[in-house]
């Protein structure tokens, strides 16, 4: 008797639920930079793994149990993937001795998924950090005085409260008074703006400076 071909639509339903679950993990782990995190390869690796895993488990189930080839099973597997299936273990081989060696012969999906999750998180953090570094480095191409002015304006618009240590405006003074090169002072100011007022604030600074530079030759 030929095997019934699993319905791809049902398979997509299971995969879509897994997809949403993976998306939820990214949103939860990167609350501050969700949008940017979703622009990285690591995030999509994790999301697609959840999609493929849920869809694949449905395909396997429907191929083995033809009666399971329906939308209810698809929904069940979609939700079961992160809550039940990932916590299961799969025996690789039957050990010769009935002792503790059994655990070594099993793959725990949870461990495997946790490893993959760690890899995805590492890739995402790497990508986001490189983006931030690039932004700070770009900001150091502009005058120190401009960066200082921008930082002080940002502070007026959005005062920072530091219970322990220097007040924010004195911290800017301390940066300027440091016996360091101008490049280091610029990097500190740029990092200060980005860390305390958001990445968009520093990006806006760079955009405004670029606009001014484009306007200058035409004047």
């Amino acid at each position, binding site marked *: 008797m030929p095997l019934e071909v699993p319905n791809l639509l049902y398979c997509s339903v299971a995969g879509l639920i897994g997809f949403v679950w993976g998306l939820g993990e990214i949103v939860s782990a990167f609350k501050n930079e969700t949008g940017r995190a979703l622009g990285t390869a690591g995030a999509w690796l994790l999301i697609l793994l959840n999609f493929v895993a849920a869809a694949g488990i449905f395909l396997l189930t429907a191929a083995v149990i033809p009666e399971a080839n329906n939308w209810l099973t698809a929904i069940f597997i979609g939700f079961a993937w992160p809550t039940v299936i990932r916590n299961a273990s799969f025996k690789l081989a039957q050990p010769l001795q009935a002792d503790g060696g059994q655990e070594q012969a099993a793959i725990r999906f949870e461990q495997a998924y946790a490893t993959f999750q760690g890899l995805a998180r590492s890739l995402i*953090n*790497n990508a986001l*950090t*490189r983006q931030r570094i690039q932004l700070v480095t770009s900001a150091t191409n502009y005058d120190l005085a401009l960066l200082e002015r921008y930082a002080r304006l940002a502070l007026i618009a959005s005062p920072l409260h530091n219970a322990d*240590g220097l007040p924010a405006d004195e911290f800017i003074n301390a940066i300027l008074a440091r016996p360091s090169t101008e490049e280091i002072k610029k990097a500190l100011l740029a990092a200060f703006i980005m860390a305390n007022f958001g990445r968009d604030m520093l990006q806006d600074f760079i955009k405004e400076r670029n606009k001014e530079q484009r306007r200058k030759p035409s004047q």
Partner: protein
Amino acid sequence: MSAKTILDANELVELVRNLTPLQRQLLINIADRGPGLILEIAVRVLKFPEEVSTPLRDLQSKGLVATDKITGGQLGNELFALSEQGRQAVTLLRDDATRKQLENTTTRSAAVPTSPADPRQQEVELLRKLGDLAAQAGDLEKARTWYEQALETTRSMADPATKPASPNP
């Protein structure tokens, strides 16, 4: 498992108690703002990199913070993030009761010692907090285990026959 985990919980509270205010601030900041390079973490707390480097390394040696190498970093190549233990430490730091306990312990350390309290009281509080953490993480089974242990300890405290002897002669 329970004896080791109780010891771990006690160790964690002791660890948090011995952290400097800057280290506590760094842990909470990393929890709120996410992982960062030394430069980023420093300016978040309005300090310079050299001022936070040693406290961060100390947190790393205590297992509260973990590092990840990044490539192409002109401003540093180590990303500091909270470890699982670090996240638990932050939860303790944010708990009002724990914070007051830590503050009281700091002020009491210079005062004349009063009569010793039942050490099992601290154990009960820790077990309760572990139960809260597990429940927040969605592990209801583990949470139930912690709460049951807290209940057993509380019951043993109510029994005068099990009251610990005073260390004072």
